């Protein structure tokens, strides 16, 4: 297809590890087919070519952590017809949102010899705190299959088929025995959105929730179970403060046990 007839895709990066946009390059079997249907108009990790906006679809990776980025996301929103966030940083602030629970000045002085050079916000926040987001794709990292589903749904102008149920459903479907029941391993699967394929329980470990809270999670009930299994309050705080620490219900739960 001629480039001019194809929808234009842009991939943007904020504070992140690049792993979610790498997932696009990891579509080894599909990449050439995607490029046949979509014009990759802006994707600096893959190309030095730049096609000016506006863009039909923007994929946004990373969280907002600097004053400059706060402005940049506004411009990107203006230039994008659809804006989809990809990954835990963009949808919940990511691991770097652990700063939100501490004094950033202290953080800066721990890491930098000359803190006065550093300009940063006190918080790491998801993209949806700043602009309207059309769809949020979860995961640290995102799932390749879900990314392809979202891009496909966009191309065919339909709603993406991304489930909001828990990891438990995926374990059952995969035939993995519950690690909490059979191995006594604390597992965040019951409160975590599916999408990863329940890989951690399949590999004999509890879920650490890289996809963040499911729809209507019941953290308190799970926390009580963790306590019965020997977790202290500090253990619970750490469990909820990982890659989706800033997501609403996990933040509330961790704050409850911090007090």
């Amino acid at each position, binding site marked *: 297809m001629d480039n001019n007839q194809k929808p234009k895709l842009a991939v943007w990066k904020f504070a992140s590890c690049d792993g979610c946009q790498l997932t696009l390059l990891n579509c080894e079997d599909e990449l050439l087919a995607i490029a046949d249907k979509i014009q*990759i108009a802006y994707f600096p990790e893959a190309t*030095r070519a730049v096609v000016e906006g506006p863009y039909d679809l923007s994929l946004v990776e990373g969280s907002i952590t600097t004053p400059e980025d706060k402005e940049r996301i506004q411009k990107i929103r203006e230039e994008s017809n659809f804006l989809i966030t990809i990954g835990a940083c963009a949808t919940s602030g990511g691991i*770097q949102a652990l700063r939100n629970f501490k004094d950033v000045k202290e953080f800066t002085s721990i890491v930098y010899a000359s803190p006065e050079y550093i300009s940063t916000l006190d918080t790491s926040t998801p993209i949806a705190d700043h602009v309207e987001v059309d769809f949020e794709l979860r995961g640290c990292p995102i799932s390749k299959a879900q990314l392809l589903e979202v891009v496909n749904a966009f191309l065919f102008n339909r709603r993406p088929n991304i489930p909001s149920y828990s990891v438990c459903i995926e374990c059952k479907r995969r035939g993995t025995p519950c690690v909490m029941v059979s191995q006594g391993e604390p597992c965040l699967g019951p409160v975590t959105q599916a999408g990863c394929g329940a890989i951690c329980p399949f590999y004999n470990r509890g879920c650490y929730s890289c996809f963040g809270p499911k729809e209507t999670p019941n953290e308190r009930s799970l926390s009580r179970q963790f306590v019965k299994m020997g977790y202290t309050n500090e253990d619970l705080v750490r469990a909820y403060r990982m890659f989706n620490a800033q997501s609403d219900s996990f933040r509330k739960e961790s704050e409850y046990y911090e007090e």
Partner: protein
Amino acid sequence: MPNPIHSEKKVSTMKNKTINVDYLSRVEGEGALRVDIQDNQVKDVKLNIFEPPRYFEAFLRGRDFREAPDITARICGICPVAYQMSASHAMEDIAGRKIGGPIRELRRLLYCGEWIESHALHVFMLHAPDFLGYEDALQMAAEYPDQVKMGLKLKKIGNALMDLLGGRSVHPISPRVGGFYKVPTRQELDAMVDDLKWAKDASLETVKWVSTLPFPDFEIDYEFVALRHPDEYPFNEGRIVSNKGVDIPLSEFEKVFEEEHVQHSTALHAHRKNGGPYLVGPLARYNLNYDRLTPTVQKAAEEAGIAETCKSPHKSIIVRSLELLYACEEALRIIDQYAKPECPYEEVKPGAGRGYGCTEAPRGILYHRYDIDDNGAITDAKIVPPTSQNQEMIESDLRSYVENHLEMEEEELQWKCEQIVRNYDPCISCSTHFLKLDINRK
């Protein structure tokens, strides 16, 4: 930032010019490049990195030692295994434990997967287009469909190896302090053999292909720094050595090398104490460990015309291809000799203390140092990734190159400068997990 989304601009006069690339492409992360030329002399070279700080060393404090591999993996989505390996080895070092046997072999195998994936990505998708004048691999695919497809398939095989051993390729979930949560069966590994044999042949072809690319006459007398092991090409273990007199255990890294917080890019620049910049990565590993490569790789190197030594940063594409070949052969060897361990991990219970880990990420040595207390909580962490170590060397290469090509047409020189940066396969997300770079924009 005048145009915060993106811009590339050039200013030129007769004798004075500024080469400005506001957003470097085909690298991991956010970086920029500025070269100032005044009266036909290179006045200033700056590799700016404006990736925002993420404060890993700070928020690691208070976390449990067992969480370090999962947390530090998130510094880089391109080389998470390197972070998991350096962190795990550092924690095992605190406990005075050395993990051997099949678990050690599986760690090497996992690293093979990461090298294959990362090197195939760089060789075919990020680096080769520069030599052939394409802006990206998708454009290159029109003229070189076989090579691009071969590169994608190689990359896929590296990812498949990581999927099997790690559970997934970006931020694997199986590695842990002491080993793995789950190890593969003999059968599962055997199922990889055909693909790896194909990958070995494809890597040989890759070496042949990339050695025919046009290379500029550009060599540098580098100080190479890499791990060196008594009998292996290095992944996870060894002493830190250089071709200019360094030969130290990991615990002395900070005595010999230092990082400086400089304002222009506010990147921590690493160099030898009282000395100059140094280079880590494939070129360094290759020059310091050529004798540890297999006969197949050495023969391919001879045929490519770079046997034993290679001081050309552009030819790092050949060296990466040779390492691809090595990783495929090593993976096949490990699978051939594999016997499934009874337990996928060894229990590691460190008391209070300090430990070091340094492993060979695809881009070079990645150094971790941790202090933990009696409860296993991290009290201090230091992480020195390969790209922050290479940053000063990249600037030095840029200076040398531009000084020799002052007459080059502007647009071409800009592209060549970008290529110099991409020679290093820089991983800016890594180098800036603790750096903040201010760009001077007028």
